[in-house]
């Protein structure tokens, strides 16, 4: 009994920590219309800075809190709102998601450089000591966290429901113009929203930091508030009381499960589940939500889109590209760079290029954000390695089939829900797969999974040059496929469903089927790419398909151009080259890049400078630039500027 009470207290405390982060998410969403994926990363940085101040610099707790929560939040809130978010006015719906992800990978990237993981950093409880009640020990810290969470939730609820500024804060997302007419600055309201949101993020990070008894870990701290995401989703990003209660319930469930259920499971399964639990909660929250009502958006897609390459253009472009690959293979066969052959690295570029093409299909055309393409790669590699001892054509086909099926399952929530929820579902899936599955030693084996090269009767791809050309052929075929899809009836439907779901339904087309289909196709492409990745590398490791690299790669595709095949190729090239030169800088580059790109829908390749008709850009089939560069044309809807809800 006393154990139970002890677990309950700790669970409520954990939940209270989540609740603070979750209410912060709700605040930012209701006032700025953006789901802040960087919420966890902001909390992580706050926790590390708190450690710097209190442990390293011996600054008092109260002063540290004041510096971080007041000063830090105001600065970070204003910077995020003013320098990043306001520039997204009129961007496509996927862009605010990308920018907050960019902030996340910048913060985690910087943190990894500043706070080397070799040093152990533990944060002390803010208040020490404990007292006994009904036979159980309660720490003052636990009481403090629960109290702070209650005060925060009650205070925000009061602000939103009972005060005039609160009304203005909530109104800003619904109708910024109308609010402006009422004499309130919508930008000012968004600023308040971001400042409050950052404050909550920092507070939750600092309060939960002492629970990390083995020391602060960048990734763990960043993902710590994912349970808060789940709570905010249960509150439908709107209701603070529901979010609060959900957060407490999740904290309790998590603590009960890890104390009562997991010890009875096998060691490895138990550990896996511990890590995967928050993501499982998030996924459950997403699939059990009532469906979102389809609404007329009242705005037109504001970007001029690149011309789609004709069949002949992509045919010629693809052949030229393959020709260049042959020359590359002949010239650099045997060249070693940094311990690997250059052709091997080139093969990696092409494999990632195929993943990039799947992102063009799913995100560029149909407007859905997928953050788990790397996970599909991992699953594809796994299937490839397990079928017929690796290196088989059957494995290659099966990797695509398996990923298509899993992809359709992951995308199921989108039948009823909006795009943001799909992004979250893929986020949850990517992390759950990595922590709960790939990291399990029995899946990839301790040292990695052997895949080997494909062997066909009379044809061997054992040599690097042959393997490189095989992957090149797959890349070219994938580019042809994606461009052919775009030119087809299905391609028009993809663009249509992305531009206006309401209109799409009212002409008699089924949104859910279209979205799930394209997502499954994209997953299959990534799966095949994963299988090929396996044949290039010959062995794959457990950490090859992590959540963060996957997100960073998506950002690179967005930076170059999420709507063209050349964007996919250049993203892959950038990723592989940077990964060789400065791996820890990947996230920082990607984050800064996506912030600079801002609302330019077709990334760097869409910019004015690329008006030049470079023949080599056609090679990956993106003759779509031939028609001149595309710049953003902001078309106000019939009633003027309308903020795009993220």
């Amino acid at each position, binding site marked *: 009994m006393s154990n139970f009470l002890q677990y309950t207290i700790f669970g409520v405390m954990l939940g209270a920590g989540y609740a603070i982060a979750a209410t912060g998410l709700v605040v930012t*969403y*209701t006032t700025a*219309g953006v*789901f802040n994926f960087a919420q966890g990363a902001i909390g992580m940085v706050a926790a590390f800075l708190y450690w710097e101040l209190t442990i390293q610099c011996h600054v008092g707790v109260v002063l540290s809190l004041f510096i971080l929560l007041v000063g830090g939040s105001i600065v970070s809130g204003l910077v995020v709102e003013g320098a990043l978010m306001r520039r997204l006015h009129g961007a496509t*719906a996927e862009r605010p998601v990308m920018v907050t992800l960019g902030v996340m990978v910048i913060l985690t990237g910087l943190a990894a450089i500043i706070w080397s993981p070799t040093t152990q950093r533990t944060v002390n409880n803010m208040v020490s000591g404990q007292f006994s009640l009904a036979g159980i020990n309660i720490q003052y810290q636990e009481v403090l966290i629960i109290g702070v969470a209650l005060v925060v939730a009650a205070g925000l609820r009061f602000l939103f429901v009972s005060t005039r500024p609160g*009304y203005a804060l*909530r*109104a800003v*997302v*619904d*109708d910024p113009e*109308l609010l402006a007419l009422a004499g309130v600055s919508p930008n000012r309201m968004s600023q308040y929203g971001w400042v409050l949101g950052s404050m909550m993020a920092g507070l939750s990070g600092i309060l939960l930091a002492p629970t990390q008894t083995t020391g602060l870990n960048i990734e763990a701290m960043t993902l710590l508030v994912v349970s808060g995401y789940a709570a905010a989703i249960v509150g*439908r*990003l*709107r209701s603070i009381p529901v979010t609060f209660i959900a957060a407490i319930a999740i904290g309790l469930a998590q603590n009960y499960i890890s104390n009562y259920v997991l010890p009875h499971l096998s060691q490895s399964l138990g550990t896996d589940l511990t890590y995967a639990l928050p993501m499982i909660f998030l996924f459950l929250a997403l699939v059990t939500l009532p469906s*979102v*009502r*389809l*609404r*007329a*958006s*009242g*705005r*037109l*897609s*504001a*970007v*001029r*889109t690149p011309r789609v390459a004709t069949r002949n253009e992509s045919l010629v472009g693809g052949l030229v590209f393959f020709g260049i690959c042959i020359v590359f293979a002949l010239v650099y066969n045997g060249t070693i760079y940094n311990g690997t052959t250059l052709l091997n690295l080139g093969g990696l570029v092409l494999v990632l290029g195929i993943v990039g093409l799947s992102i063009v299909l799913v995100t560029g055309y149909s407007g859905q954000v997928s953050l788990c393409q790397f996970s599909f790669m991992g699953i594809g590699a796994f299937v490839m390695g397990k079928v017929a001892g690796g290196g088989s054509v059957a494995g290659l086909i099966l990797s695509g089939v398996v990923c298509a099926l899993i992809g359709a399952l992951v995308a199921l929530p989108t039948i009823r829900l*909006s*795009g*943001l*929820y799909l992004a979250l579902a893929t986020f949850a899936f990517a992390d759950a797969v990595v922590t709960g599955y790939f990291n399990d030693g029995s899946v990839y084996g301790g040292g990695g999974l052997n895949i080997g090269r494909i062997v066909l009767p009379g044809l061997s791809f054992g040599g690097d040059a042959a393997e490189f050309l095989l992957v090149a052929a797959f890349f070219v075929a994938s580019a042809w496929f994606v461009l052919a899809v775009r030119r*087809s*009836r*299905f391609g*028009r*439907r993809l*663009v*249509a469903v*992305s*531009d*206006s779901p*309401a*209109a*799409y*339904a*009212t*002409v*008699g*087309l*089924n*949104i859910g089927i279209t979205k799930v289909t394209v997502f499954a196709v994209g997953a299959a492409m990534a799966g095949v790419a994963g299988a090929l990745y396996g044949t290039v590398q010959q062995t794959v490791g457990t950490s090859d398909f992590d959540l963060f690299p996957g997100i960073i790669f998506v950002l690179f595709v967005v930076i170059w151009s999420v709507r063209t095949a050349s964007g996919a190729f250049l993203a892959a090239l950038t990723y592989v080259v940077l990964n060789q030169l400065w791996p820890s800088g990947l996230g920082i580059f990607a984050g800064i890049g996506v912030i600079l790109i801002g609302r330019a829908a077709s990334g760097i390749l869409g910019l004015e400078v690329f008006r030049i008709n470079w023949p080599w850009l056609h090679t990956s089939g993106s003759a779509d630039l031939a028609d001149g560069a595309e710049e953003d*044309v902001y*078309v106000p*809807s*019939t*009633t003027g500027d309308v903020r795009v*809800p*993220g």
Partner: protein
Amino acid sequence: MSPVDPPAIGPDMGADPAALVVSGVVVQFGGVRALGDVHLSVAAGKVTGLIGPNGAGKTTLFNVIGGLQRPNEGRVFLFGEDITKKKPHQRARRGLARTFQRLELFGSLSAAHNVQVGLESTDRPWTLSSRTRRSAGTTVPERLAKVGIGVERDRQASEMPTGTARLVELARALAIGPKVLLLDEPGSGLDETESEALGDLLVDLSGDGVAVLLVEHDMELVMRVCDYIYVLDFGQIIASGTPDEIRTNAKVQAAYLGAQEPAEGDRDPSSESSAVGSEAAPA
């Protein structure tokens, strides 16, 4: 399909069931009653007008009919079938098409492809693309020409002026071959000639047997093309009748015609969730 017979309301249509019947529809946004017990019926081969001041609930009613807004009470019948619980795309497949007051075009597609998506909406995945290509060659320009768009068909929809864009939207709605057509202010943004052509088009459509429900502020257009008119005010039908009856109806004059002309750009508060406390579902 539905065992329930739609109640007879509106003009006498003889033995034919009405193409579209709205029966006792109530929509509540938080504390605001956007529609209160609305009954109306739209006959095949007729143009029916729905007029009323801004904020009367016209767009909300369209959303209820089209399936974008679930009513708190009441039912919607399409050719005698209860479609209240059907999804928007299922209604469209039964022959219901609409345009939007605030444009809902596929902005990154060309005008021609906007229409083509409509034309192809009935294609199944296994339908051969040759059919698509044939329709791309002939029917799309035809459809666009029908609404008066000739040269601009390869222009990206989001770059078109509002008036033209409205016509593209109309052409797309016509492309699905509708039996019932809901038009939400199709005349706004059109010049006089275009507006006149629109009127002729509507008369033609009703001549072909299409049931048209028209929301419009241009009274001249409404009075010219409508066979029957409903007047909505504060979510209630306050009058209905032929154009002549409406013109002389005292209640209508007090509520609408006699009053000031509604300012352009005013909007229907029910068409979006501007009201605080309404269901602002995350997008």
